[in-house]
């Protein structure tokens, strides 16, 4: 199957303001990626270029070596890497076999650059997420 199911992406807050058609465009850019239990998916401090949505399985999040949370189906991680090219802020490890859909910076950026409407909606959503984060 090409891309990710739209209903999976509809659960991602970053994409919450996008129309169905806009989501469909983004969904086509995703590629499946599977991880084995115990595999480190992203490493705190490393470079990264991909964002992942979990279709099935569980992953653990740790920050500075301290367990932080557990992710499961429908959860997502690595979205900041879609916007900037900064370093990863947490380590994510597959706690079981993990089926994901991944979207790379290289695929996402041209779409946003070519589509100002999508770009603006993402910007608004990011601003809202920033407000929420500052509000504690």
């Amino acid at each position, binding site marked *: *199957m090409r891309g990710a199911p739209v209903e999976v992406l509809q659960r991602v807050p970053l994409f919450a303001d996008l129309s169905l058609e806009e989501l469909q465009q983004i969904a086509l850019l995703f590629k499946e990626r599977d991880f084995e239990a115990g595999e480190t998916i992203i490493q705190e401090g490393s470079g990264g270029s991909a964002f992942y949505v979990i279709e099935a399985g569980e992953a653990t999040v740790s920050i500075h070596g301290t367990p932080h949370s557990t992710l499961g189906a429908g959860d997502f991680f690595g979205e900041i890497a879609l916007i900037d090219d900064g370093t990863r802020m947490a380590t994510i490890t597959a706690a079981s076999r993990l089926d994901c859909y991944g979207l790379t910076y290289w695929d996402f950026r041209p779409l946003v650059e070519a589509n100002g409407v999508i770009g603006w909606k993402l910007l608004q959503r990011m601003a809202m997420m920033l407000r929420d984060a500052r509000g504690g």
Partner: protein
Amino acid sequence: MSRVVPLEAALELSRFGAKAVGLGQALRDGLPVPSGFALAADLVEAVAGGDDDAIAEVLVAVGGLDGPLAVRSSAIDEDGVAASFAGQHLTLLNVPSLEALAEALRAVWWSANSDAAISYRKRVGLFSRPSVGVVVQTLLSPVSAGVMFTRHPVTGADERVIEASWGLGEAVVAGLVIPDHICLDRAGQVRECRPGYKAVAIRPLAGGGTQEEKLPPELVEQLCLDEAQLLALNRLALRCEEVYGPGRDLEWAFADGTLVLLQCRAITKAGP
């Protein structure tokens, strides 16, 4: 323009990557490279994206290969840095069938987009879209395999440096064993021979993938190459230097009594 070609027809670095073009050149020059196919980077990406037409294109083109398969990444040369991508991108040994090939290609594509690969690219000043071709060959099940430098990679001395172990050469490349270490002069005479400590060999698994096999005690410190095989390796070194020039870094294997060349690239760092 075909996106899957027999290795000997892989000519364009920008489409098929350094490994595929290098092996294609070796075949055209009569070197003993196992036959196989080169897949262009855009096709690999389409397969990774789940494009059914692309998957069908691959399966039709490589359908003549006997399984199991070796699927090797072939980094596209970007600003001349591809040679230093060694170890960053995935090689999958023992892909059990054509049915599993699409998944293997997806894994190779993602390996070029992994955090480790992206971090590496940033370190070498390259933050741009990765692109990776693929080489697909029938998997060998070698008796012994390893690497050979056609001159000393550290001192630059004019001698062959061979590191060898039992089974697939990945045991040497991945540092799982202390390999046999042999230096030959240009005439093929042994200058130095130090048996290693080879407690394991990597072998293909019946259902796909590989496993570390514990070796019987009598093989652990026994040299895995005989005199005739050392002479064959020296002839291969000579031939590679004739074709490519001095200072080559080779991966090789002895399978079914035959020496085959798996990779030939420039030594990235050699002494004076």
